[in-house]
């Protein structure tokens, strides 16, 4: 439907925008920045912080630019004296309610409230400090997320994120007036409610009220301890996000510089989660084919199909709470992070002649849910934690700054061996649809002996930001041992963001849809939009990250997981065959039914 155009003036300059645009959009078009706090490009309009108020000629009140649609002939002033007074008051009010301890705050230098206070040079003492008068709590019981109400400005970005993007609603507004706050169910710890630890709220919190629990000091202690051998693994999408936190534009691939920085920080061995992503494809692909065989050939009706992926720990926690009856449908494969950790303390330790008790395994992840995952009691295959510390992309950036490393000027270096080799199929794990694409590249070839029938191996239908995607692959001319799949059409679906995941699973439960294989990533865009990735995030930023991921894949010499030589080697030397005895011991796991609140 064609949209009407609306003409208005902002600070006396005429501008034409589409009907339905906000004053904020129109101002942006003229390069006038109006400050915002509760507004976020991923979320619906709230209009509650009021820092974006502007003056409208002829109107008594000051409309909120983010929440007010333009109208014909409107005349707006974004920085009149009336506006400045109101805006300064509003910032001062926020600070009067705020525990402003910037020097000891995790968000120091990266906080939207602090930036506004700085910009408006507010006199913090104009109003009475309310902080001491109100009682605030800090919830640091979760291994992943810290919630500090004394830093909260009640913008409700987290609430909207958790409800609309994630369909979890672990956070909600409670009480009114001076007691209003952001609460969990009965004010329990984030660790004891339906929170999936996805960290999407952390990505959108403008202040230090929601942050990841950081393990930076513990990791420094480990790397600086000569008696400890510290291995570090880096997840696929860290290499395309990290640069943003170190001054580069979104979409920069910094794989070589990142490896170089990790070596300079002092990790004893810098390895790649991409290796275990390839391994995941072998294990999960085999698991899928086995389930299909049981269902189709053995007519075993107890086989749970569709099978869903299991590499996103936010998704695992979600399904444990919301669809516990579907847990048999989840692949038993551990996530690549945990597979890697388990192998680091077994296979790798043996090969390098290391005592496991003298090892620390660290992972760099785009994800906060991985912190929770690493803490699960199931994840101790060697008798020790598979992964000791999980750092987000942001924490790594902080370590790089602390180490005084000038990141932009670093040379490109290569991952160490062993468990440092990977394929393009592993890199794309970082984007929604990537696991599906990687799995298809391998499974199709195992079954037919031929490459997937897509130009350059690019399975385009599974790519992109569509909330729920579908793909069907006809399997023809199969190798003799896969005869039962001849002529079958493999039906797949992909969802990213838990609200989409929920929609898809609801359709599965109701029987509306029928799939064999489903990929789910808890975060928007997949891991590239993970809760541990650099802040800010927006659809545009995530699109740039996605481009970078597919570039990285296209530039890899090896593009299929089963062709990664280290994968062939580890099966030959150590694991035996996919889904074999050893794999089950180290690389697979089980799930826990949880309550729906």
């Amino acid at each position, binding site marked *: 439907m064609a949209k009407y155009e609306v003409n208005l003036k902002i600070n006396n300059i005429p501008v034409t925008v589409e009907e339905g645009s906000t004053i904020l959009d129109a101002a942006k078009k003229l390069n006038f920045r109006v400050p915002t706090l509760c507004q976020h490009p991923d979320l619906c309009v709230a209009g509650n912080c009021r820092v974006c108020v502007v003056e409208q000629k002829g109107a008594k009140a000051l409309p909120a630019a983010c929440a007010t649609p333009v109208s014909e002939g409107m005349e707006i002033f974004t920085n009149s004296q009336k506006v400045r007074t109101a805006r300064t*008051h*509003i910032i001062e009010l926020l600070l009067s309610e705020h525990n402003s301890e910037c020097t000891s705050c995790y968000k120091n230098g990266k906080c939207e409230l602090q930036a506004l206070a700085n910009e408006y040079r507010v006199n913090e003492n104009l109003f009475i400090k309310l902080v001491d008068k109100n009682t605030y709590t800090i919830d640091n019981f979760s291994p992943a997320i810290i919630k500090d109400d004394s830093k909260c400005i009640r913008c409700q970005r987290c609430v909207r994120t958790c409800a609309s993007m994630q369909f979890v609603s672990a956070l909600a507004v409670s009480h009114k007036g*001076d007691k*209003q706050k952001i609460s969990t169910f009965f004010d329990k710890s984030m660790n004891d409610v339906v929170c999936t630890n996805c960290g999407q709220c952390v990505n959108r919190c403008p202040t230090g009220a929601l942050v990841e629990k950081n393990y930076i000091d513990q990791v420094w202690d480990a790397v600086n301890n000569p008696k400890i051998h510290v291995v570090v693994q880096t997840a696929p999408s860290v290499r395309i996000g990290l640069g943003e936190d170190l001054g580069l534009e979104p979409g920069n691939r910094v794989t070589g510089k990142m490896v170089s920085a990790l070596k300079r920080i002092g990790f004893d061995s810098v390895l790649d989660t991409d290796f275990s992503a390839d391994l995941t494809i072998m294990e999960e692909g085999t698991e899928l084919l086995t389930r299909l065989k049981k269902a189709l050939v053995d007519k075993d009706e107890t086989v749970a199909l569709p099978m869903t992926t299991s590499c996103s720990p936010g998704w695992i926690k979600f399904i444990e709470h919301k669809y516990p009856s579907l847990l048999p449908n989840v692949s038993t494969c551990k996530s690549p992070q945990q597979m890697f950790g388990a192998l680091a303390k077994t296979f790798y330790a043996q090969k390098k002649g290391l005592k496991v008790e003298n090892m620390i395994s660290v992972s760099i992840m785009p994800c906060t849910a991985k912190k929770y995952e690493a803490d699960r009691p199931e994840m101790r295959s060697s008798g020790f934690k598979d992964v000791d510390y999980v750092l987000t992309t942001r924490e790594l950036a902080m370590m790089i700054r602390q180490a005084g490393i000038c990141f932009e000027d670093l040379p490109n270096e290569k991952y160490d061996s062993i468990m440092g080799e990977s394929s393009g199929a592993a890199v794309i794990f970082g984007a929604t649809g990537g696991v599906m694409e990687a799995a298809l590249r391998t499974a199709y070839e195992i079954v037919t002996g031929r490459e997937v029938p897509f130009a350059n191996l690019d399975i385009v239908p599974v790519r992109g930001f569509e909330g729920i995607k579908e793909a069907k692959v006809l399997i023809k001319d199969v190798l003799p041992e896969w005869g039962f799949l001849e002529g079958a059409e493999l039906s797949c679906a992909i969802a990213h963001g838990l609200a989409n995941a929920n929609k898809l699973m609801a359709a599965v439960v109701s029987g509306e849809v029928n799939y064999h294989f489903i990929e789910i990533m808890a975060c928007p865009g997949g891991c590239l939009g993970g809760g541990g990735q650099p802040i800010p995030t927006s659809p545009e930023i995530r699109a740039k990250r996605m481009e970078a991921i597919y570039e990285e894949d296209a530039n890899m010499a090896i593009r299929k997981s089963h062709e990664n030589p280290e994968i062939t080697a580890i099966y030959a030397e150590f694991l035996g065959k996919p889904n074999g005895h050893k794999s089950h011991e180290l690389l697979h796991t089980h799930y826990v039914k949880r309550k729906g609140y």
Partner: protein
Amino acid sequence: MKDKKLTKVDLIFENDGTCATTVLDKVRAMAQDDVIMEMIDSGLKGRGGAGFPTGLKWKFTKAENSFDKYIVCNADEGEPGTFKDREILDTVPEKVFVGMTIAGYSVGAKIGYLYIRAEYNFLLKKLNQKLDAFNVKIKDKGFDFTIEIRSGAGAYICGEESALFESIEGKRGEPRNKPPYPTVAGLFGKPTAINNVETLVYATMIMKYGAASFKLMGTQDSRGSKVFSVSGDTPNAGIYELELGMTVEDFVNDFGDGDTKAVQVGGASGICVPRKKFADMIIGYEGVPTGGSMMLFNSTRSMYNVLKDYLEFFAEESCGQCTPCRIGCQQLLQGIEAVKRGEKHPSYLDSLKKLAETMKLSAKCGLGQSVANPFSSIVDNFREEIIY
């Protein structure tokens, strides 16, 4: 324009028993637009506080192209010192239902909700009985309209129209952004005409007696009469229907105890009129508008305590979502306390007045916007009482 004298009126509580039938039959025979024209012509403005012309509200709602439209009767009555809607619902509920039916007929709505404050639940049994019979009666008369009752969430803010919609929709009662206005996107996102209880009864009476006779009462800006809830230092506390346009002095002469130093017009969110302004201040849109609460204070009252009570009320009853109101209310309250204790210089009151002005300009809804009314009018007129 001080020509109006205090005149008692008996429209709202007039109970002739046949009113519903005659009015409904009359309306049924009229075109929708003619009903709306009659309402516009009468000059009736909303009696819930904001004073928006009722006929225009209905006209806008009718103009929207939507299959679903709603009528909502706002009976949340949470303004401190106001208790007239309770009395209306208790004594003449059918006239409220008739008003809703007229509104529904004019705008093309099939469902009407009566949102009644939780504290009035004791009325529910009686109301429901009457309503069941009424719903049958209007069907028989050919109206495609049904009224349902919804019980309130027990918060003052749920009387604000968009928060009220959220509450009926089962959500937390938080005001929405405007625009869109209710006439465009109200309850369940559909065009909605929301009116106060008293407004709807006046609609009934206007359809009974005609706009022309209604217009004879009141002034140019404030047509007709209005129900007042009179409380405070008065020997005559209670509910009175009075013609609009009298001065505060007129009112005080009748209702004061001889020692009145101030009248708070319009409840906690209204304006405090001091004695020196009694003679000039007209009760109506040209002077002090009111949702109906008239609270009289005599010289034994501490205006500091009055203001403090109001601010405590707002600090607690603000929904808390927007910055100017949530924190502003707390600052105003703690600010006057600090001045009283001598911890802040009396000039801090002027900073607070500027803050109240910011709240008026930038708060998201009428609650935060109106705190400046009592604050500035009390601080300006009773500064010494606040400081010493």
